């Protein structure tokens, strides 16, 4: 994994170096924590304008739904930062002078750095719809967005959510938790169509309808109408239909939040361009998390990865690189997860939305229509490419290993018992799946039995 770059060439190494991180999200905070573990002398500062302390962005929806308060979403207690000598600055950076190595802040004194880490996160997309600036129309990304949503929906009778992805479903679920009827506009013919194969997409849509989401497929937003006071009163679709509503959630994806560094010496494209070590074109300036864009994307990976896990891994890797000999970013097999109302989703490896020969797929769905499993593999040598699981928990380690070791789909299916991660006393479906596979592919596989247990051992859970 090591290569020829030495830490000394890679970044400033002086004792007590000032490392400044803009962004206290998962990427910035993970990096700071790991830096502190390996460099006890460095002065580490984390700046963010959003909230004073790190909180879990992924938990925003639960605050709105009353499952948690903001305090509950902080992964570390407030004393943690001082104890680890991570200085927090709550404020917005307005500009960066890369020459003088200095940051200007909106309210505080300028801050100087030796090493600058940009972990700026994302921003919700807005596609210039007429009326998108009206009150009651918004995306959901930041804590401030959440507060706004809270206020805007306090006196709302109907809501519209635009966009067929993960944040869209979350917004729909949030609004419904407050008993607001939701119309969900999806431009494509199916929910999250560019990621999910048809069956999975349908499974999710069935479940959304079960939750009384008024799902409108192939429906595009054209404009938003003003009620005369600057508030939204309706949306108009491309086909001219007017849907009255007092709140519109725009969840049509996010883009790297790079306004701060636009028109500077820093090279950007969609995001801040970085090499495989997260170095930008300016020495001692690095970028990680949602805002970074790989110059050369890794095989089978996007050039901008905007999920929690990648932010974390970027932070871990960069912290290593700033304190050891730099290594290339090398995430293991892809994984992700989400929850659509009550149905959990996990994915390991690469499952595309469509595929062609020689790629083949095995799909099994429980009669309830709420549990499903898909394996995508090479039809010739049966090598597993990836799996999707719905309403079913699977062990990450199991698939991480299976994918790295190039296991075949059949090796995985006969051992699936070991991968099940559902709570105790849940019905197990691995045998049913295997039978379905046998039927579909004319095989005769039997589940690989672990060493047979005696009655007593089984009883005692040995």
């Amino acid at each position: 994994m090591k290569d020829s770059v030495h830490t000394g060439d890679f970044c400033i190494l002086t004792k007590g170096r000032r490392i400044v991180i803009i962004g206290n999200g998962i990427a910035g905070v993970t990096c700071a924590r790991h830096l502190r573990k390996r460099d006890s002398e460095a002065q580490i500062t984390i700046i963010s304008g959003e909230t004073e302390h790190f909180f879990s962005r992924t938990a925003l929806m639960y605050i709105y739904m009353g499952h948690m308060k903001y305090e509950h979403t902080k992964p570390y207690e407030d004393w943690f930062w001082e104890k680890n000598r991570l200085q927090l600055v709550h404020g917005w950076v307005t500009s960066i002078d890369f020459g003088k190595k200095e940051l200007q802040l909106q309210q505080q004194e300028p801050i100087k750095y030796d090493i600058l880490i940009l972990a700026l996160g994302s921003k919700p997309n807005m596609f210039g719809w007429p009326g998108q600036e009206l009150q009651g129309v918004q995306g959901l990304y930041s804590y401030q967005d959440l507060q706004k949503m809270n206020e805007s929906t306090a006196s709302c009778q109907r809501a519209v959510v635009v966009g067929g992805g993960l944040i869209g479903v979350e917004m729909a679920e949030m609004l419904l938790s407050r008993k607001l009827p939701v119309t969900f506009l999806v431009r494509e013919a199916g929910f999250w169509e560019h990621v999910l194969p048809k069956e999975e997409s349908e499974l999710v849509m069935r479940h959304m309808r079960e939750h009384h989401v008024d799902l409108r497929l192939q429906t595009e937003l054209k404009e938003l109408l003003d009620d005369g006071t600057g508030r939204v009163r309706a949306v108009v679709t491309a086909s001219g239909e007017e849907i009255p509503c007092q709140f519109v959630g725009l969840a049509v994806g996010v883009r790297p939040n790079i306004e701060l560094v636009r028109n500077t010496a820093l090279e950007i494209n969609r995001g801040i361009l970085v090499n495989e070590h997260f170095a930008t074109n300016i020495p001692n300036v690095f970028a990680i998390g949602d805002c970074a864009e790989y110059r050369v994307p890794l095989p089978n990976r996007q050039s901008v990865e905007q999920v929690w896990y990648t932010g974390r891994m970027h932070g871990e890797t960069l912290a290593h690189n700033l304190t050891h000999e730099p290594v290339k970013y090398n995430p293991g097999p892809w994984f992700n997860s989400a929850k659509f109302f009550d149905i959990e989703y996990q994915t390991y490896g690469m499952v595309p939305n469509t595929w062609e020969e020689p790629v083949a797929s095995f799909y099994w769905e429980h009669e309830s229509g709420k549990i499903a499993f898909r394996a995508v593999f090479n039809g010739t040598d049966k090598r597993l490419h990836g799996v999707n699981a719905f309403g079913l928990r699977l062990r990450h380690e199991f698939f991480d290993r299976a994918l790295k070791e190039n296991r075949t789909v059949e090796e995985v299916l006969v051992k699936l018992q070991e991968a099940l991660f559902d709570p105790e006393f849940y019905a197990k479906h691995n045998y049913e799946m295997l039978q379905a596979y046998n039927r579909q592919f004319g095989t005769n596989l039997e589940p690989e039995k672990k060493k047979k247990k005696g009655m007593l051992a089984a009883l005692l859970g040995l």
Partner: protein
Amino acid sequence: MKTLQGIGLGMFLLALLTFNALLFMGRFELSEPEMAQSVKQEHVEVLRQELQPMLGKTYSSSFAFATDFNSYLDAYNEKQKNSQQWDRVIWDDYAFTLAKVASEGFVKNNKLLLLLLTVVLGAAGALFYILPKYKGEPEGIKNNGIMFSSNKSRGVVGISLGAYLILVYMLLYWFPEYIVNWTLLVDPLSHALSGGPASQWFLYGTIYTLAILVMGVRMFRRYRGNNYQLLRTASVMFFQLSFAFLIPEVLVLLNKPWYDFKNIWPLDYDFFFEYSVASMLGSGSLGMFMLIWGILLILVAVPVFTYFYGKRWYCSWVCGCGGLAETAGDPYRHLSDKSLKAWKVERWMVYPILVFITGITILTIANYFTEFALLRQSTDVLHQWYGFLIGAAFAGVVGVGFYPLMGNRVWCRFGCPLAAYIGLIQRFKSRFRITTNGGQCISCGNCSTYCEMGIDVRWYAQRGQNIVRASCVGCGICASVCPRGVLKLENGPEQGRITDIPVLTGNDSVKVLS
């Protein structure tokens, strides 16, 4: 649906109101024969003289009656103490017994009707409210609005409820004479089960059991589709109804000691106190069996079951305190304090209490075998103080009264010496752990928030570390509420159970220690 629930809530509140109003109803009139029948022979004469002004007098409430009674008795005792006549002091607490026999009128004459209008109506109302819940909704846990609820989030309703519970517990433990009217209601049930009148403890047992059953039904609704929760709830309902409520009463009917076969020392703190041991030894072979059974539970069952299944086999599947916490206490589970500081306080409380009760018990047993030559009767003082401070004030008043204030496991977490003992085994010698699923944690905090024991589950999950904690009662709620399928309660080989050097799956660039 909504109307039915509204009616249910109305019924419940009406029943609660009536129940409380009962305390101010009825008359109290103590006759001489009633008194003579209810007290020890040697006290009859004294009390006849001392209580002369009270006998035959009509009081309009138990409060007035008890006040008078206590003042006469206190005056008498004071006199004896002053003249050093210690053996003439009346130590027995007759206030409850006499108030009970003295009661007349409305409540006494309408026991069944009033039972129906209070306890039964309340339970029925609660069920009317609970059963239609989530009807027509897909399976899945709905924690919506919990943080906005005044009841569940330490609002006015929650604090008032806490205050009410604390008050009721104080009456129950220290002023039972004020709640005789409540015990009258369950007299018929007590007669049917054990053949005797209801004490305040029988009343308590009845309501406690009913609370577990009714709120257990709520658990069935709330966690439908989640087999672990359903089975666990069914288990605590079963153990409470049979082991803790019916069987002991039937034993009494058969003239045997009241005994709960699943209550284990040191939770059952007086198991080895002289009076308990004497009562068991005096009850023939069944009594002998009880003594041996109790000892086996402590020395064999606890270590063996805890080794195989973890603390949960007892705390969230069998125990009565756990049973109430897991059913009636479920709406308050998120109120537990998750801070590191609280964890410190927990350890500085629960283990000293274990040491303390173990010490008292050893002294008591040593004293017993040296035929009281060692410490004479002075262990009694220790017993009384432990019973007052820990047995009553902590386990009862704080344990349940603080549900709406500090969560449903205050006693189990900070006070219960049995939980401390089982916890030590779970921590150091058990196959139980909560496994975390690779790198899937998104640090959302649902697991920590809903941990009733105040364990910061997320701290472990987000660094890929198995959760092996003495306090974990294995309720499984963290795994149920986790939106990413990160947590799983498992029994497995001891090897690799404690992951001191956790590595999160997913990043192959570096092997970082989280």
